[in-house]
């Protein structure tokens, strides 16, 4: 392990809270092997734009590490210490530009055959941190609702195949008023366990993400594909400039996107800065989110769950455009005609991934999950007390279905 003291380093790129956190943990950071230190620095650098749940986790990790003896610390990060760096990476300033360092490191790990070793080190640390962590389930059971298939006709293949093993499949749901009922139910949760207007530390718990124009509603966070049309356009314009310049390759583009600021694509101004950064990350780090609304909803849900750990999440998929050549779709050309049947398949898989990602969060044993084929009679419900692998032909309306989950 690199036994270094706190070096004189450039923290000027760090926003205020991040800088305070780095300085407060300077001694610890100086003791860590360089690879692990840079991983932590990358997280610290974005501290000001993190959700409360992420901040808590980062602070907990730093507290955990700071509380270890030197020999314990050596043991828990030894996998990272064993990673060999090359001279050009060693010359990089991981303090000032951890993202740039990580990009170079990733290439090096692949080319030097050390990716397996890195994965093992990361898994070992994650297991250690997880074992030391006090379980922190939400006070209310999480609720995930996924509405799929807007505009699609009957599915060509059975729906919810991957989810059926985990809950009850319904095929006689009365669709009338279903969407309004789901929106209202999710909204009532946000009021009952509400965080609107509260301190930032307890915000971002109730989310609504729509693949088209969001229905009028009142959630902590409401994001829609339509709402981000202008930022998407500005981002694609920037990408086109890079492509047209013929002076940059894929790596340069990735670096450019990583260093982009929300205001550059119209996400500054009056927008909550944490949400502005989050929305920007969906467009700059997500693959396909710029061109397919289905991918946007799936990725936004994944990132929202991983990062904000919400108590309520309502997703509504909309038809994405039909496939056209990537360069055409990225050129800001008018979106192609919609592909509702393909989008139904995409969203069905997206619903499964949302359930999987919810299952990774604290309190998963109490979580409730519902996916519904909008305007149709098929749905799946997963939750405590609902038998796994069952099906029901009972005629139910959406209110009754929700009641089974409560």
């Amino acid at each position, binding site marked *: 392990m690199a036994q270094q003291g706190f070096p004189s380093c450039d923290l000027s790129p760090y926003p205020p809270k991040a800088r305070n956190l780095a300085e407060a943990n300077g001694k610890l950071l100086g003791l860590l092997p360089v690879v692990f230190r840079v991983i932590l620095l990358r997280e610290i650098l974005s501290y000001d734009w993190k959700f409360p749940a992420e901040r808590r986790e980062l602070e907990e990790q730093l507290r955990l590490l700071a509380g270890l003896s030197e020999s314990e610390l050596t043991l828990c990060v030894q996998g990272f210490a064993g990673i060999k760096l090359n001279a050009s990476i060693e010359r990089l300033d991981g303090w000032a530009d951890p993202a740039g360092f990580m990009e170079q490191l990733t290439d090096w790990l692949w080319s030097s055959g050390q990716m*397996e070793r890195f994965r093992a080190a990361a898994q070992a640390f994650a297991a250690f941190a997880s074992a030391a962590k006090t379980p922190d389930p939400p006070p209310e059971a999480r609720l995930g609702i996924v509405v799929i298939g807007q505009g699609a006709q009957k599915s060509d293949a059975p729906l919810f195949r991957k989810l059926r093993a985990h809950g009850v499949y319904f095929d006689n749901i009365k669709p009338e008023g279903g969407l309004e009922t789901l929106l209202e139910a999710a909204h009532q949760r946000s009021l009952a366990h509400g965080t609107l207007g509260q301190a930032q530390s307890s915000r971002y718990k109730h989310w609504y993400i729509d693949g088209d124009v969001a229905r009028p509603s009142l959630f902590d966070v409401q994001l829609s594909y339509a709402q981000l049309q202008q930022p998407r356009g500005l981002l694609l314009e920037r990408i086109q400039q*890079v492509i047209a310049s013929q002076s940059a390759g894929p790596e340069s583009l990735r670096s450019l996107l990583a260093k982009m600021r929300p205001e550059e694509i119209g996400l500054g101004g009056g927008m909550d800065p944490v949400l502005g950064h989050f929305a920007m990350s969906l467009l700059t780090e997500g693959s396909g989110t710029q061109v397919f609304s289905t991918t946007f909803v799936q990725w936004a849900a994944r990132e929202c769950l991983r990062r904000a750990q919400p108590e309520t999440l309502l997703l509504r998929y909309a038809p994405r455009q039909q496939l*056209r050549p*990537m360069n055409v779709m990225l050129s800001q050309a008018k979106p192609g005609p919609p592909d509702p049947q393909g989008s*139904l398949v995409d969203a069905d898989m997206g619903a499964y991934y949302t359930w999987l990602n919810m299952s990774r969060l604290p309190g998963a044993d109490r979580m409730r999950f519902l996916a519904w084929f909008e305007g149709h009679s098929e749905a799946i419900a997963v939750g405590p007390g609902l038998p796994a692998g069952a099906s029901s032909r009972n005629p139910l309306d959406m209110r009754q279905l929700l009641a089974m989950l409560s």
Partner: protein
Amino acid sequence: MNASVSLLHEVSARQGWQRREFLRALGGVAGLGALSGFAPLRAMNMPRGQKAVVVTFGGGARDEETFAPEGQENIPYMLRELIPQGTFYTQVINRGILGHYVATASLATGRYETLDNFALVPPSHATVFEYFRHDLRRPATDAWVIAPSNGFNCIGSSDNRSFGANFGAGVILPKHLLAAALQEQSSVDYEHLLSDNYESPIAVPTAAFSVEDIHRTAELLKLSLDNFRTHARSLASPDELSVYIARTLMQQLSPSLLWITLHDIDIAHSGAYSLYLDGIRRSDRLCGELWRAIQNDPEYAGRTTLFILPDFGRDSDLEASGNGFQHHRSGDALSRTTWMIVLGPGVRQNVVVDRPVDSLDLVPTLGAVLGFSPTQAQGQRLHEVL
């Protein structure tokens, strides 16, 4: 063996076992046999004029969408036609970099190449095409690569000084051929064939096709540009265009070594699951068509070995650091473990090989089939198909 390598082996073995069980459960492939100790089937007693066709998928497909019960509907040709006629390896492990150009270059050299996946650079080690042409004194028209992606321009030969471009394969990028053929014409009807790079929005720079290049290639293929344009309009994807060019090559030049990289599956990077499934179904159908074309062509029938393999896998749904089918970035065991089908004269039919083999084993095996010595290649000959 360190813990991470041991884990990779363990998961790969489980994956291979599952593939065997999936196939066993399938009625049409009920008679699967296993290979353990045995004598070489025909050793090196190969017919004269032996040929080989290699099909790789740039963009792996996972078992959930292929060999697992819920995925079998997507690969009817492989399950019902190809596997019953060939030997199926359930565990082919790729220990290299999981980018499509660099991984395909590794398959072609038998060494884990470390080149920049997005750069226009040739492999560092001699390619299978160079060994083939050098050792067997074959002309340039006898080895070809058909690849859809821009980055594949340089895959036909290495920058190794003992071999190099003089012994390399001809490389056809059908998309570029079509784009050039459409010069001064509207490409609106062909847009769907002009896209094949899904790993990055920025394409790798490519060597320009001159008018002379286009006409020389068209002349070699005895392809009227008008007919090419007309036929292309009837095709559904870049991979269909690639197979069309491959079949034209087979009819006109009958190359002894033909390498085709399919790429439609990699649309998975866009996150659209339905398009990824479409890519799998199309690749499956095209492999079936190619095998039938081989059987129906007197220049190929009875003396051609066909190898079909993805360059690597995709991330597992259960790998938290990934996003399921969309990418192959996590480096988890499933993204490294894939499979291979081998068909041809003397290759045992309806047989499954469970032992783990390496992606690098392809080149030494091609060397044994065609009769050249890949001196720089690593990996072992796959004795089950020799």
